[in-house]
């Protein structure tokens, strides 16, 4: 459904990779691998359409994502390095805004349940500023439980700062999404107990 062809990414003087191609089908879990600095984050940002490629083409359901940006973004969920959490708002407020801004209609009750499910039941009303690293991370990850109808999840190092149990839960959630016909594309340097083995794409293979 997601097809990438001949992608090249130039950063400053350095051509990070070129001729990168990938296909992601419904139900697939794709892990982008490679050592630090090889261009995984850059690749994800290209795929989401946040950055423009130096060359190449990205298609979603057969249409170029630049031409059909809105349709693509309606089906995309991207969580990058930056957690998109405002320090002054509580986890609940942050989550509700994240959903509303993205266009998902979710009521407060459902958001609350998602936060409880992800283990923030005691932090619902604290300002995000005082949360621990792992708790901040969880706030943004809670969106995953509310975005089932978004087919493509693109996650940049989602396991960072999470404790062992949270890693296992998240891996389970990702597997479930794939089992339900979704697609997941993620980077991580950690091992996680996925129910289905992820396909691995090594960016290093396309490096220049």
């Amino acid at each position, binding site marked *: 459904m997601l097809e990438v062809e001949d992608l*090249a990414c130039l950063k400053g*003087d*350095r*051509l990070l990779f*070129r001729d990168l191609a990938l296909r992601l089908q419904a139900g697939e879990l794709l892990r982008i691998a490679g050592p630090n600095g090889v261009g995984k984050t850059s690749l994800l940002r290209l795929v989401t359409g946040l950055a*423009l*490629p130096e*060359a190449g083409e990205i298609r979603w359901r057969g249409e170029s994502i*630049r031409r059909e940006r809105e349709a693509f973004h309606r089906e995309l969920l991207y969580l990058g390095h930056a957690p998109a959490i405002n320090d002054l708002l509580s986890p609940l407020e942050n989550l509700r805004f994240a959903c509303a801004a993205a266009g998902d209609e979710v009521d407060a009750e459902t958001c609350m349940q998602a936060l409880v499910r992800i283990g923030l039941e005691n932090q619902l009303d604290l300002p995000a500023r005082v949360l621990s690293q792992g708790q901040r991370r969880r706030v943004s990850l809670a969106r995953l439980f509310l975005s089932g109808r978004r087919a493509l999840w693109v996650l940049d190092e989602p396991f960072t700062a999470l404790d062992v149990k949270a890693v296992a839960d998240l891996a389970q959630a990702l597997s479930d999404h794939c089992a339900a016909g979704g697609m997941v594309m993620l980077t991580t340097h950690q091992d996680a107990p996925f129910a289905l083995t992820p396909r691995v794409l090594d960016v290093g293979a396309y490096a*220049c």
Partner: protein
Amino acid sequence: MAQWESWSAFWDMGGAAFFVWGSYGVTFALMALELVLVLRRRKDTVTRLLRWRRAVGKDSARKTGASVPVMESET
């Protein structure tokens, strides 16, 4: 020298030497400076790019040179 009795009269500019020569002097100095900067920039660019090419290796250059689309566009 139709306008001027002597060179000193010319340089004096009817008492307005400072204003007239100040204008012309700064103007031409700026233009000369700009020219020097532009030409030096070119030299710097060439040396820097040469060094860069040596550093990264020539084969990392993309193969687009001959086939640059007529109206180059990004995307």
